[in-house]
């Protein structure tokens, strides 16, 4: 996923270009240079553009595989048709009504089915698409198989194209905003997205409903263009058509969807001589594209205006400021060992008020920890979790004061990560309670816990692998972008300001963690240690009060580990955090943590200061076995 940082202007370009295109088209139609036949074909192309971009929102952006899109198109088409035939309502009203009913249909169907994943979801959406058709076929009001005749004819290319343009712009804006980042995060890693404070269920259902709503709009256009609709217009094959267009264009690319829908509707009209073989060539083309270019023609990329590229860059240099940067993929790769140094060197670039005293000697924890507050910050009582008959963790207790730097250690399989999973809501505990700042959080879903101020990293790194480093961090600002869904559609001036602030804050976090050089690289291309640091940056972006680090030093060399230790201590003070960390590197834990809890077979066997832990016979026994005693 590599989008232009200057998307706002990018979309403005598209609007301007489309407007010019529209004017030309309408001039051609008005002067009879382009007859109704072409106008009709272009309308069809427009309808398919809406269908494909809206399916892209569900399949490409959010990563939820839906193959029943024609069903929602049918809902919209019938809404418009019935309104037009029975109440003679104007075109605009019908379009809006189609949007609304299809959105409701999407909501009703999305709520239960989006719990499913992958192929199962695909099959369920297929099923629902068919069910919608069967229902329409059996209802009296829709006149069953006879279809609806006499829908007002609106084949005004201008109206159609306006609706198409609006739909595409709205979808474009949704995708290129905090909402879009949340959706993409869900596609990349749903669990990680949830711990970034993204209500994944809500967002998935929302994307599904919006995608469906626009399919409904396309259906309404279709109904008004054909003046006659019947259930057979909305079969599974129609859904496949849309899917093929989307996939050929490239899942996740809006411009790809537009170009592909446009050319695939127009092409057969000009290739009538291959009519006989068209239905053989199409699937063949599909298979060949999948085999040789499975990401589609455009991948997840968006087209920019090659010819306008120069002007674009000039604009960027004038207005871009903190935002802009060339989207080249070949950012120089710093050698892994120099990573920490870079961070130290660039520390002087940090904004005023930040004093990263990182170059100091190890152990210079002269900075006093935040004064321990009298009441516990995190309080865990009797926490247990069972999987079937297995007690993974039982009766876990913990009490952390604010500002603590606490370690959680234990042999492999002791249940440390399970404790984290319970604290972040990923695995609801079977028994016990968790109080965070005196509020019970043990029954909250992960995204709520995240918004309470708990962030974590993962033992088996869960970055959004196909996003850039910068986008990874920006995504985590989800709860703190400061604008709502409406603002991302309307884009008031404040929107740009807030987006730029998110970007600059994200860049600042990257600087702190020594990743600013890498900000345009895909997360998957980072070396291991940097991926771990990126995870920390991402966790910090949620503005947590409590940070849970799951083996942050795993895979690092001693030098890296040492600077990581400094870094952890420094961010604790800088961001006024409380940190709980799991780590196998004993030297790090013993030097860094103020107190340590030792877990073995799901049971707490000891809690105390590092020195006490080192001396405790039960801990030694757990680690070294009985013989050593």
């Amino acid at each position: 996923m590599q989008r232009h940082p200057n998307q706002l202007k990018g979309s403005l370009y598209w609007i301007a270009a489309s407007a010019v295109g529209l004017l030309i088209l309408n001039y051609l139609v008005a002067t009879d240079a382009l007859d109704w036949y072409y106008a009709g074909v272009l309308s069809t192309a427009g309808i398919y553009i809406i269908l494909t971009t809206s399916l892209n929102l569900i399949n490409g952006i959010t990563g939820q595989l839906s193959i029943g899109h024609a069903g929602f198109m049918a809902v919209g088409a019938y809404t418009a048709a019935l309104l037009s035939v029975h109440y003679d309502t104007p075109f605009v009203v019908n379009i809006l009504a189609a949007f609304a009913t299809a959105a409701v249909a999407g909501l009703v169907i999305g709520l239960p089915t989006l719990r499913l994943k992958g192929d199962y979801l695909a099959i369920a959406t297929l099923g629902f698409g068919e069910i919608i058709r069967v229902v329409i076929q059996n209802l009296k009001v829709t006149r069953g198989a006879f279809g609806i005749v006499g829908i007002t004819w609106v084949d005004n290319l201008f109206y159609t194209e306006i609706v198409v343009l609006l739909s595409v712009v709205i979808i474009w804006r949704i995708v290129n905003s905090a909402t879009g980042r949340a959706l993409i995060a869900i596609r990349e890693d749903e669990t990680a997205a949830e711990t970034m404070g993204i209500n994944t269920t809500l967002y998935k259902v929302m994307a599904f409903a919006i995608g469906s709503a626009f399919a409904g709009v396309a259906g309404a256009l279709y109904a008004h263009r054909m003046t006659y609709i019947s259930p057979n217009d909305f079969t599974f094959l129609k859904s496949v058509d849309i899917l093929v267009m989307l996939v050929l264009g490239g899942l996740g690319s809006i411009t790809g969807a537009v170009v592909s829908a446009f050319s695939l509707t127009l092409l057969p009209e000009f290739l009538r001589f291959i009519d006989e073989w068209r239905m053989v060539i199409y699937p063949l083309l599909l298979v060949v594209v999948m085999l040789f270019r499975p990401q589609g023609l455009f991948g997840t990329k968006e087209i920019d205006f090659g010819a306008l590229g120069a002007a674009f860059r000039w604009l960027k240099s004038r207005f871009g400021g903190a935002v802009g940067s060339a989207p080249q993929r070949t950012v120089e790769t710093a050698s892994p060992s120099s990573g920490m140094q870079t961070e130290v060197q660039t520390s002087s670039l940090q904004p005023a008020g930040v004093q990263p005293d990182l170059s100091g000697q190890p152990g210079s924890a002269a900075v006093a920890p935040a004064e321990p507050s009298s009441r516990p910050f995190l309080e865990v009582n009797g926490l247990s979790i069972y999987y079937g008959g297995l007690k993974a963790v039982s009766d876990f207790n913990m009490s952390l004061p604010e500002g603590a730097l606490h370690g959680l250690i234990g042999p492999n399989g002791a249940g440390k990560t399970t404790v984290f999973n319970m604290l972040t809501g990923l695995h609801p505990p079977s028994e016990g309670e968790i109080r965070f700042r005196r509020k019970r959080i043990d029954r909250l879903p992960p995204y709520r816990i995240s918004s309470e101020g708990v962030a974590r990293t993962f033992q088996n790194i869960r970055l959004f692998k196909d996003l850039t480093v910068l986008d990874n961090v920006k995504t985590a600002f989800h709860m703190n972008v400061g604008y709502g869904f409406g603002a991302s559609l309307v884009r008031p001036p404040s929107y740009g300001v807030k987006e730029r602030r998110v970007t600059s804050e994200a860049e600042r976090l990257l600087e702190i963690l020594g990743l600013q050089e890498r900000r345009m690289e895909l997360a998957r291309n980072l070396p291991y240690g940097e991926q771990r640091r990126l995870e920390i940056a991402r966790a910090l972006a949620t503005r947590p009060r409590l940070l849970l680090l799951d083996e942050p030093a795993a895979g690092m060399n001693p030098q890296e580990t040492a600077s990581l230790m400094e870094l952890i201590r420094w961010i604790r003070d800088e961001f006024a955090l409380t940190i709980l960390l799991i780590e196998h590197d004993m030297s790090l834990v013993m030097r860094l943590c103020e107190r340590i809890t030792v877990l073995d077979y799901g049971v707490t066997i000891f809690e105390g200061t590092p020195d006490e832990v080192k001396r405790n016979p039960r801990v030694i026994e757990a680690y070294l076995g009985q013989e050593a005693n």
Partner: protein
Amino acid sequence: MSRVVASLLLCAVCILLALLRKYRTHVVSNPALKYSYYPALILLAALGINYLLTALGANKVYTFQQAVYGLSLGSVYALIALGYTMVYGIIRLINFAHGDIYMVGAYAGYYAVTVMHLPFVPALVIAMVASSVLGVLIERIAYKPLRNSPRITLLITAIGMSLLLENVGQKLFTSTPRTYPTIFKASYEVFGVSVDQSRIIIFAVTVLLMIGLQYFVNYTKPGMAMRALSQDRDAARLMGINVDRVISVTFAVGSALAGAAGILVGIVYPQIKPTMGIMPGLKAFVAAVIGGIGIIPGAMLGGMIIGVSENFVTAYISSSWRDAIAFGLLILILLVKPSGLLGKSVREKV
């Protein structure tokens, strides 16, 4: 009054079934009970239904007649579903083209019977071999290069292959339907229920093939390799299993079953056409999901459930809602027990 008794009885049967299921492990460990477990279940269910019908005063002959029709239709679904389930179990792909392999099997059988004038068994073998070759070819050409691609790429390729086969089929076989000659004419009457010889054959062949498949997967070396592969492909590779070969074998076996379904359909419902694979293909996948995908008896169970319930819906309600009910059933299963009736649930590791 009798209705109350009947519903009570039905409850009792249900509880008994549930208990049997719960203590299945004990039953299965006892060799004497092991082989009578499923027959006993079926017998119990049949008795319960029979009693219920008597109590309700329903037309029993009509009802059992529907069950017979349902079982033969269910056999078709089951045979196709077996292939789906095997392929999905191993490479996690909904092989949309599977329904069309079934179509090709039907045509291969048709030409074997009409042009080559072969009797049933050799024709069945030809249909199975032809489908099997096609299945392996499709896998080699279209799926193998994509083995490490995202699942959606594979799925879309499968949809493309399916459309391709349908349309090439229309060119090759023309869209005019073909009709099988009548091969099995006899019909028997059991308690007033008429049972055609062809329906007995379709059911018997299905059960035999399923048992054979079960044996193949559980007790032969390639079968063991398949199971290993379905658990963990990389580990299987490290154990010295030739992954490509095992996947080919899976496609070969699954496609052969679809080919068998094709010729059996031609014999019982004598018409075939190039688009015949679409709906049964989808339904068979639904069957595989209902039974628990990757589980061989599950595919059988799912196929039978769909076949029988479709017949009952047609016979008692109306065919116009039939497809909605089949897909509704699917969605219900997915939401309540996504692993299917015979499946075990798995938890995602964080």
